[in-house]
C-alpha cells in the first residue's frame, strides 16, 4: 500500500503530504524514484528533505527543523489554489464510486457518529491536480454513495466537476486500499485497476459497497522492490504504520 502510494509521486512534483502512510510514501518516493519531489504541509511548512524522524503531526518539531520554508497556511494553500500542486494524499471514512469523500458524518451500528470534519481535505480534493485516497478496504468504507460530500470527487460522473466550477485540471486519480488500486474511467466512475499480491478479485468485489468494474487489463500491484522495502523498514521498523 505504501509502495503503491509512493509510485503516485513523480520526480520534481509538489506533494501535499499529510501524515502517517502518505508521509512514509513521500519518504520512500524521495529516496527512490523521486528525489526532487517537494513536500507541502498546510500548516505552512515546505520541505525539500524528509524530516529526520517519523511524525505524528505536521507540527511536530522535526518537521520544522531544516525546512526550506515556514510561512502561514495561506502561503501554502495559495499554491494549491494556483493549481501548482501535483498530487495530494487523503484518508477518508467513506469513499464512493465517483471518488467523493466523507470525513464529517459516519455511522456505527446504525447510529450516526460525528467525525472530525474536513481539515484541509476538501481543499486538496477541490484544488490539487491529482488526488490519491488511502483507506482500508471494506463495504463500510467503500460505499455506493457517501452520506455527506466533505471533499468532492467526480460528484455524479463526468463533467460534474466542471459544472460546479472546480478547476479543469483537478480531481481524483487513485484510491489505494488494503486490497488493490482503483482508478477512474472517462465517465468519472472508479474501476479496479490492480489487486495487491495475494488478493483475489472476488474478495475485492465482495468487500466493495457497489458493483465495482474491473479493468480489462487488470494487473497485480507490483510488490515493493528491495530498495523500497529497505526504506519502509528503516522508517517504520516495528511495522506500526505499514502492516499491509
Amino acid at each position, binding site marked *: 500500500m505504501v509502495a503503491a502510494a509512493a509510485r503516485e509521486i513523480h520526480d520534481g512534483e509538489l506533494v501535499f503530504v499529510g501524515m502517517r502512510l502518505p508521509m512514509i510514501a513521500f519518504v520512500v518516493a524521495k529516496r527512490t524514484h523521486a528525489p526532487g519531489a517537494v513536500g507541502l504541509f498546510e500548516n505552512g511548512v515546505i520541505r525539500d528533505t524528509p524530516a529526520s524522524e517519523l511524525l505524528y503531526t505536521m*507540527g511536530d518539531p522535526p518537521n520544522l527543523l531544516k525546512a526550506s520554508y515556514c510561512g502561514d497556511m495561506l502561503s501554502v494553500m495559495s499554491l494549491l489554489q494556483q493549481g501548482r500542486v501535483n498530487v495530494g494524499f487523503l484518508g477518508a471514512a467513506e469513499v464512493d464510486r465517483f471518488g467523493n469523500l466523507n470525513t464529517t458524518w459516519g455511522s456505527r451500528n446504525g*447510529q450516526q457518529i460525528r467525525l*472530525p470534519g474536513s481539515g484541509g481535505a476538501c481543499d486538496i480534493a477541490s484544488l490539487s491536480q491529482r488526488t490519491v485516497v488511502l483507506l482500508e478496504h471494506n463495504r463500510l468504507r467503500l460505499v455506493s454513495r457517501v452520506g455527506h460530500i466533505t471533499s468532492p470527487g467526480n460528484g455524479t460522473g463526468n463533467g460534474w466537476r466542471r459544472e460546479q466550477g472546480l478547476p479543469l485540471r483537478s480531481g481524483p486519480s487513485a484510491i489505494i486500499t488494503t486490497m488493490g488500486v482503483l482508478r477512474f474511467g472517462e465517465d468519472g466512475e472508479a474501476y479496479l485497476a490492480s489487486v495487491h499480491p495475494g488478493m483475489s478479485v472476488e474478495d475485492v468485489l465482495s468487500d466493495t459497497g457497489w458493483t465495482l468494474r474491473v479493468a480489462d487489463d487488470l494487473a497485480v500491484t507490483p510488490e515493493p522492490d528491495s530498495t523500497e522495502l529497505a526504506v519502509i523498514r528503516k522508517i517504520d521498523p516495528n511495522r506500526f504504520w505499514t502492516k499491509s
Partner: protein
Amino acid sequence: MGMIASKLISMRQAVAEHVPSGSMVLMGAQLEQMIPFAAGHEIIRQGRRDLTLVGPISDILFDQMIGAGCVSRVMAAWIGNASAGMGYCFRRAVEKSIPRAIETVDHTNLTIALALHAAAMGVPFMPTYTTLGSDLLKRNGNLREFSSPVNEERLVAVRALRPDVAILHVQRADASGNAHLWGNLGVAIDGARASRKVIVVAEEIVAHEVIASDPNRTLLPGFLVTAVVHDPWGAHPSPVQGYYGRDHAFFHEYHDQTRELDGFERWVKLWVAEVPSRAAYLKQLGDSRADNLRVREHALSVPVDFGF
C-alpha cells in the same frame, strides 16, 4: 522607545477581563504547534459559557472546553485529537447534547483561513474555488456562491470572521505585545489581525530591543495586542519549537481516559479544575516528563544584519 505601558498581566486576569461568556474566541491558530492550553484551562476554571470557538484544526483543547460545557458553537475545519482521531467530548455534545447541545459550523482549513484573512484585510469576504460541489458549501451560511465580477467563473465568497479575542501562544514577546513567533504560522497572523482583542501568551518576556533586532519576525505590531501573559509551558502537551516537544503520550492518554463521560469528568478535575495555575500543572506533570520534552539539540538561526 515611546511611552508604551506594559500590558503584562496574569492569565487569570487576562481571561477575567478579556474572555467573557458569549465571546467568539480564536485558539489553536498554529494548528498542532503552540496550542494555548493554559488559557483554555483558565477559561474552564472561570466557568465561561456560550463561547464560540474558532480555529482550523482544534485538537484536544476544543474537545476539553466542549466537554466542560463552555461552548455553544464551534467554527472549525477539524475537531478531534490529532494523535488519535476522534474527540469524544465533541461527539457526545453533537450526538447526545452532553453536557449541552452545540452548533457546528463546518469549514475547511482554507475557508477558515480566508474568513480570517478577509477580516484582517478589512473587506467583507474573500473569493475562492474551494468547497464548490461539496456539502460544506450547502450547509455553511458563511460560504456563498457568486459570479466573478471580472470573468465568467463561479466562485465562493467566504464571509469575513471577526473573533472577539484571539489567544496566541508564542515563543517570546516584549511587554508591549511585540511578539516573535517562529515555525509554522498557521492562521496566527490573520487570526490576530481579524480579532477585536489579542492575548499573547509567551514562553519568555524579552526586552523590546530583542524584538526590534529582527522586526521581520514580529508577528504583529504591538498596538494590536491587548494583553501579554507570561506562562512558560502554557502550550503543553502541544510543542513550542525551540522550547519543548510534543507530548504524544498525553494525547493518547486523554483519548483513552475520556471515552466515557465519567472518565472525562475525572480527567478535567485532575488536570484543570484542581490545578490553579500552570506552575501547579507542571508540578503535577512531573519533572522527568517535562525533562523528556526539553530541547536536546539546539539549532540557532544564522543572524541577519540590519545595520547601515
